[in-house]
């Protein structure tokens, strides 16, 4: 593929992989699973060209631990998978978050639970945003809704990971991964300064470094938890991202990723029928852009949360609304993607309901 500087047609999966390379990622460890196989395939071709390493692990359990090792070595490193594979990585993610290692994980979600299916879904929202593995921790979670944004957020993810020494997840779905769109790789202007003095590189000319997660003294472990929670507080303060449209409307759709995109078309159709509807599209799912919801919430507003699951992000919207606004939910699941017409009907029905 070579260097891509002009507008080009790429799938979301390819855009994510190339964006990672442009962000300085030189190590990828993963295990194939549909619908994200284009990511490892792309890396297997490109990484050797740029002096990096692509390695197919024996399992997702091993892959995430290889990421742990490469991140601890001070490198920019990534893995990708889809829902069942991400479940297998949860142990490693808990350790990575506890050890405060920067890395990027891509979850191109498919329908679950269990083996589920291979069609697009958003049913890993809870797993991604609430921790996922054992213990008190969070990933930073970014949800693209286009191929362009998948690339932009992947580059952003590496900077966020280094800034907070925290794992960052790109949470896409099968549509974002497999859809092909014109896009361009944008240079990031604000380069973060990266301190990796904590990395394991051999204790030459310095005290030895240690990467660990075991604190047997309860007070010491509590302090460790408080330290990492201070990072989450800082993320909540400075990293919330959301796209908003027509926020003065009485009805606001809240949706992320692919569903937000379908909702935008539905909003245009509703507008042509004389119904004004707004949109909040959370881009960071953790930290959730609660302030967008809470500043908008009042007696006259109704939020309609639409997701490709049985109701997960809706809980964060309810918390954000703080009882000041009605919160409705509509979901399709199992790989069924809601259509524009379906969303139009849902909004029309709720608009007719008495408050």
């Amino acid at each position, binding site marked *: 593929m070579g260097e891509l500087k002009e507008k080009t047609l790429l799938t979301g999966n390819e855009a994510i992989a190339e964006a990672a390379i442009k962000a300085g990622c030189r*190590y990828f*460890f993963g295990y194939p699973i549909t619908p994200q196989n284009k990511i490892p395939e792309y890396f297997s071709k490109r990484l050797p060209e740029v002096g990096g*390493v692509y*390695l197919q*692990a*024996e*399992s997702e*359990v*091993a*892959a995430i*631990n*290889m*990421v*742990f*090792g*490469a*991140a*601890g*070595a*001070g*490198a920019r*490193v990534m893995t990708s998978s889809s829902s069942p594979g991400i479940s297998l990585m949860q*142990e*490693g993610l808990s*350790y990575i978050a506890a050890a405060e290692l920067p890395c990027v994980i891509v979850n191109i979600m498919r329908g679950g639970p269990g083996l589920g299916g291979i069609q697009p879904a958003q049913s890993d929202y809870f797993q991604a945003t609430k921790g996922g593995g054992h213990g008190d921790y969070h990933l930073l979670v970014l949800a693209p809704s286009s191929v362009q944004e998948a690339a932009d957020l992947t580059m952003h993810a590496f900077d966020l990971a280094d800034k907070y020494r925290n794992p960052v997840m790109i949470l896409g779905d099968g549509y974002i991964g497999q859809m092909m769109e014109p896009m361009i790789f944008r240079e990031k202007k604000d380069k973060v300064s990266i301190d990796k003095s904590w990395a*394991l*590189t*051999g*204790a*030459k*000319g310095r005290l*030895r*470094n*240690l*990467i*660990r*997660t*075991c604190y047997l003294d309860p007070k010491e472990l509590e302090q460790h938890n408080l330290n990492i929670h201070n990072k989450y507080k800082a993320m909540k303060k400075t990293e919330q991202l959301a796209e908003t449209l027509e926020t003065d409307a009485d009805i606001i759709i809240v949706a992320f990723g692919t569903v937000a995109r379908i909702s935008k078309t539905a909003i245009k159709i509703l507008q042509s029928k004389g119904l004004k509807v707004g949109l909040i599209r959370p881009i960071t799912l953790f930290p959730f852009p609660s302030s967008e919801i809470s500043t908008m919430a009042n007696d006259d507003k109704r939020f309609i949360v639409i997701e490709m699951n049985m109701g997960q992000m809706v809980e964060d919207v309810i918390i954000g609304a703080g009882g000041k606004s009605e919160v409705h939910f509509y979901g399709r699941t199992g790989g069924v993607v809601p259509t524009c017409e379906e969303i139009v009907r849902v909004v029309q029905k709720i608009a007719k309901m008495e408050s």
Partner: protein
Amino acid sequence: MGIIFQRPSSMFPVHTHYCAGCGHGIVNRLLAEVIDELEIREQVIGTAPVGCAVFLYNYLNCDMFEVAHGRGPAVMTGFKRVHPDLVAFTYQGDGDLASIGMAEVIHAAARGENITVIFINNAVFGMTGGQMAPTTLPGQKTTTTPQGRTCKIYGHPIRVCELLSTLEGAAYIVRSAVNKPQNVIKTKKAIKKAFEVQMKGLGFSMVEVLSQCPTGWRMSPIESTRFVEEEMIPYYPLGEFKQPKV
């Protein structure tokens, strides 16, 4: 009179937490002696396991990871791919390596990852209080095999050296013990050779060490060294199973 015996400089001047008669302390020291002799303290990176040796990093003065149970070989795979010129070792017990982490060690060996695995086989889960391990001997009593390990019910012990030595990527595979001075000396030689194999870039190396666990076995330290000699070595024969092709 000159100094004839002292603490290796790669070892912190602290007491270990190991039980009296435990083999871990001996192997920790041997590791430090080898690191000193090869002058690699500033190039070596190790992993401490989940298990009795979790605090290995309190004793060895080098860069270290403490890793999830069984995942050392995967972590070191990632590490070594970033820093191929540094020297990487994992330190793992039998629950860590032969039970929960079997996939990771087999595939690291199959890939010929240029790392060294120190595998402590004491036939029991030590830290959790003496439960059955994959290497528990037939008939051996543990807290979860109170009548002795019945192979018909609990399956058979795993001989890891024999298993890994069938793999092309495994360069040096050796089993030794630390139950008597002659074996301790042989174990040190094996650890040194394993590191040298890695430093020459020859591929995966593993030293399995039969180690006594008096507490887990409910024996005195003396009885436990005899148990290694009379029960373990006949089942797990000592020696080099695979030598690097030169």
